[in-house]
């Protein structure tokens, strides 16, 4: 098993946001996480990536047998956790490509891989740009500075392609992409899929899952996974919304005397 999350609880500013998450992801799998706004999807992604303002109060997270919660954010990244951010930040003056070169060099050092020569790096950059159809001129601009919403999302996927992570968590990468871009990005991700890596797709829309077919779909509500199923669950949600799940959840909670 690649990723194993056991009874994960986390607070932000004293408020409990994740309330006992259990999730297992194997290499080669794609998991989709859906759920209403504010249910804790981005929080789960942040906790996995090691954002410091979240306090883990209970539970465990293992990545290929290593305790993820013991690692600093950059160590998790080097171990192969990649988060495509819902809201990528802008960093003025830092060129996209220099930043990637630095990141890749850190990651390769950690993985005991030789450093790429300038030529090899450029070759790789070109290949990955093609794979996700990322415009070369964006690669040379300052990191996300003045990028449109969709361009920022595509940059996240370009970085993903460059850094070749084990576990990729994509937080609403599909929102903000136009129809063509969604298709292009999805096909890029499909090409990156292998038996060695895994993807967790956080999304609100069934459309993405038509392009990247998930092995499992989970619904996160109120800090817990309240339902899991196969790709048909996404269709059912598209049709019925979340109310029936919320009712089910609150019904159970009432029965359990919560």
């Amino acid at each position, binding site marked *: 098993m690649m990723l194993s999350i056991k009874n994960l609880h986390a607070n932000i500013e004293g408020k409990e946001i994740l309330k006992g998450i259990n999730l297992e992801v194997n290499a080669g799998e794609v998991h989709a996480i859906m759920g209403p706004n504010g249910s804790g999807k981005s929080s789960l992604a942040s906790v996995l*990536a090691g954002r410091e303002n979240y306090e883990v109060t209970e539970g465990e997270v293992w990545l290929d047998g290593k305790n993820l919660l013991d690692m600093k*954010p950059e160590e998790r990244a080097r171990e192969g956790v990649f988060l495509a951010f819902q809201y990528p930040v802008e*960093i003025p003056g830092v060129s996209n490509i*220099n*930043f990637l070169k*630095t990141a890749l060099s*850190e990651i390769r050092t950690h993985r005991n891989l030789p450093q790429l020569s300038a030529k090899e790096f450029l070759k790789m950059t070109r290949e990955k740009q093609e794979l996700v159809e990322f415009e070369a001129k964006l690669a040379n601009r300052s990191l996300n500075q003045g990028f449109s919403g969709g361009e920022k999302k595509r940059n996240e996927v370009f970085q993903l392609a460059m850094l070749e992570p084990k576990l990729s968590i994509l937080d609403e990468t599909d929102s903000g992409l136009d129809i063509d871009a969604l298709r292009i990005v999805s096909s890029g991700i499909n090409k990156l899929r292998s038996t060695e890596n895994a993807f967790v797709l956080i999304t609100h829309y069934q459309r993405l899952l038509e392009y990247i077919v998930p092995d499992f779909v989970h619904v996160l509500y109120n800090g817990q996974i309240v339902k899991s199923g196969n790709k048909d669950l996404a269709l059912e949600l598209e049709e019925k919304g979340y109310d029936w799940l919320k009712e089910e959840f609150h019904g159970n909670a009432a029965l359990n005397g919560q």
Partner: protein
Amino acid sequence: MEKDDIMLDQLANKEYEFGFVTAIDMDISETGLNEDTVRFISAKKNEPQWMLDWRMKGYQAFLQQEMPEWQNFKMPEMDFQAISYYAAPKQQAKYASLDEVDPELLRTFEKLGIPMSEQKQLAGVAVDVVFDSVSVTTTYKKHLNELGIIFCSISEAVREHPELVQKYLGSVVPHTDNVFASLNTAVFSDGSFVYIPKGVRCPMELSTYFRINAENTGQFERTLIIADEDSYVSYLEGCTAPMRDENQLHAAVVELIAMKGAEIKYSTVQNWYPGDKEGKGGIFNFVTKRGACRGAHSKISWTQVETGSAITWKYPSILLQGDYSAGEFYSVAVTNHMQIADTGTKMHHIGAHTKSRIISKGISAGKGQNSYRGLVQMGPRAAYSRNFTQCDSLLIGDLCGAHTFPYIESKNNTATIEHEATTSKIGEDQVFYLNQRGIDSEQAIALIVNGYAKDVLNQLPMEFAVEAQKLLSLTLEGSVG
């Protein structure tokens, strides 16, 4: 791309990298300052009477000056009698080749990374190294001579080119300018002299490395650069100093003169010992730098990267006298731990159609205090003159401070002055974003800061830009938790 690599490679060092004292025999004067001290220095340097007279005028002016009070920090107590005003390496001869130079000195240069070696020369840089007070070696002199360019120590210029020195020395920064300039006039040790003849474009960056070595010795450089009509020169000044516990005063004076159609580009990377984390030790850097655009269509540009010193007090300014003359000031000033920087510029628009541009990037970390102080003055004759000022502050952490003091005076209603200012904090989410890509926080800060300072760093010649990036990173080490 290359610049970033080098910068990132060198991020590893923790303590002040250049902290060591070299054991070389020094010829040091007694501590204290009086007329005899001035005479001693002048005699040591075999100066003519006119030079001694001028020093004496400086000394008299010094006695009458008050310490400045307007800066945004409390002036430290300075005991001018506790300073020794002259130090020179005992071997005073000039060397034909590096083999003849004291090997200990060469090792020092090596540790400092001063590229006095073949590679540097091949790269086209003539290095005139001022080791404490006396010029030790000058390279490329011959080649420059052929073009009529004079690049030598001030002492040598006093001997060899007295007419030029007498005409221009003190013509931009008078001996009465301020207490530190007066002191410098009285006791200046050495420094560089540059003269570019009419119509000559200096084919290489002229570069001088200054450093302070002798214990307790104030350093008083004097630099004079004259660009005659339609000439061009780019001059680099870089500094490092050994670690020590006592505060050391540095009071340099730099004068630039650009005649009609001439251009002078003056770049500084300053990395003197800033003191330890508690603020103990460190250099007091009180510098007077001023340029005069004397002729029409002349141009002067100051670029500075200030990462060192316990206190930096420095306002490179420009007198825009010639019509259509242009002045530029590009600055990055970093303060970490207990460092203080009060720096900026003065643009005096005197002629018509003059232009000035000010780009100032302050970075404060730790408990550092960073003040930008700038004056833009439009005189009555400065018709249609323009100024643009961009003044940015970046804060790292909650204990540091950034302050801006922009002053504007306009006596001509056809002149325009534009001022933009921003203050930002390095965002946790920016650092986290970079962390998430495998980059640790220290490197992340270095990347962000270098990105922020890019507009200024881009003004530096390539090899200096690399050094400057490295210094920014080194200076900010330990500024994130």
